[in-house]
């Protein structure tokens, strides 16, 4: 026997299905709707994924400690080979009679400075410094944190032995995560052990604190401020003994400065 549908009315017509009660007030005044819940749910999921990936990625940052078992710094031989035979005098490297002088303002903790030290500096040394057309002077900055000051004082101390650029290149190669205490006494001892003429105890002592060296860092900072320099690395270029001009580089490779140097050399 066929069962009679409760919704079928006499005459075979289908009775209208009762409408469900409205979820909220019409016209958009009800805020907590399904669409809102969807938006909030999506947002929470997206934000959680982004933050989780960021936190995990930061935790996975590899250590850049670079002291070899022999107590030297990784890359010491390369640095020695790069700088061999080129005169250094305090903050400067290159022939004092070179027609052009380049000032480099850098912080030992600045990753862009590290990149410039690894990519551009060796090429500029080979192309312009070694044949006496360019000298480069370092201007220490120490605005990122405590390791900046320790590193800057250590390289200035190395400059007292005319080995600043050796120490600078080696410390950039050993650069660790910002403000992680990576400019350790052991690292400075390793820098000294990598370069003839440097004394580890003197570097460690200078790094731990030296008012005179801090004053020299302050002078560099004042010079940077006076020239509108507020980021690193920054550069000034011009005739040796003449007026130097701020140079904006478009790349941290040698090409970033090559066009400026070549233009001045052609004059």
């Amino acid at each position, binding site marked *: 026997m066929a069962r009679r549908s409760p919704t079928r009315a006499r005459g075979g017509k289908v009775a209208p299905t009762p409408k469900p009660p*409205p*979820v*909220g*007030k*019409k*016209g*958009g*005044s*009800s*805020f907590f*709707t*399904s*669409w*809102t819940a*969807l*938006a*909030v*749910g*999506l*947002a*929470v999921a*997206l*934000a959680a994924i*982004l*933050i989780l*990936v*960021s936190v995990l*990625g*930061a935790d996975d*940052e590899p250590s850049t400690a670079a002291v070899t078992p022999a107590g030297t710094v990784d890359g010491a031989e390369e640095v020695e080979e790069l700088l061999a035979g080129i005169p250094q005098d305090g903050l400067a490297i290159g022939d004092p009679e070179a027609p052009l002088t380049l000032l480099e303002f850098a912080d030992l903790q*600045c*990753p*862009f400075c590290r*990149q410039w030290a690894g990519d551009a500096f060796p090429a500029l040394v080979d192309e312009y410094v070694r044949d006496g057309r360019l000298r480069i002077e370092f201007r220490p900055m120490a*605005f*990122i*944190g405590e390791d900046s000051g320790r590193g800057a004082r250590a390289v200035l101390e190395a400059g007292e032995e005319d080995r600043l650029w050796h120490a600078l290149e080696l410390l950039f190669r050993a650069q660790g*995560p*910002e*403000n992680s205490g990576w400019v350790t006494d052991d690292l400075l001892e390793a820098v000294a052990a990598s370069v003839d003429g440097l004394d580890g105890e003197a570097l460690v002592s200078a790094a731990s604190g030296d008012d005179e060296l801090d004053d020299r860092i302050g002078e560099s900072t004042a010079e940077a401020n006076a020239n509108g320099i*507020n*980021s*690193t690395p920054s550069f000034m270029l011009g005739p040796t003994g003449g007026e130097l001009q701020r140079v904006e*580089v*478009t*790349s*941290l490779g040698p090409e970033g400065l090559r066009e400026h140097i070549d233009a001045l050399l052609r004059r």
Partner: protein
Amino acid sequence: MSEAASRRTIAALALVGAAIAGYLTVTWAADVAPVCTTGGCGKVQSSEYAELVGIPVAGLGLVAYLAIFATALRPGPGPAAVGAALALAGVAFSAYLFVIQAFVIEAFCLWCLLSDAVMVLLVVAAVLRLRATNADASPA
């Protein structure tokens, strides 16, 4: 605010945000520090928090702003909900990055702060749009 007005506001804000994120993405790709009056842009941009699995955070921001802009081009509760979701997620991630700048990197990036402000305004506009778009309509 009507839905049309909120969509126009969202579109304008998203373009401003895209311009900021685009500039930061370009400087990241060129390995140069952005022009900066707070002094910390280079430090923030070169920190380990400036990338997510090798992708620049600024690039992700650019994609997010363009996606929010796209949601403003179409009316209705669906695009409104997606736009609001992106803006809310963006503001939550911006808050996280603000904390990282303040307490981990200990430097502030001017452009990041401007982007944060744009994202907060986008959330307000997106929520107003969601309310205006007959929000009681169910997605099912």
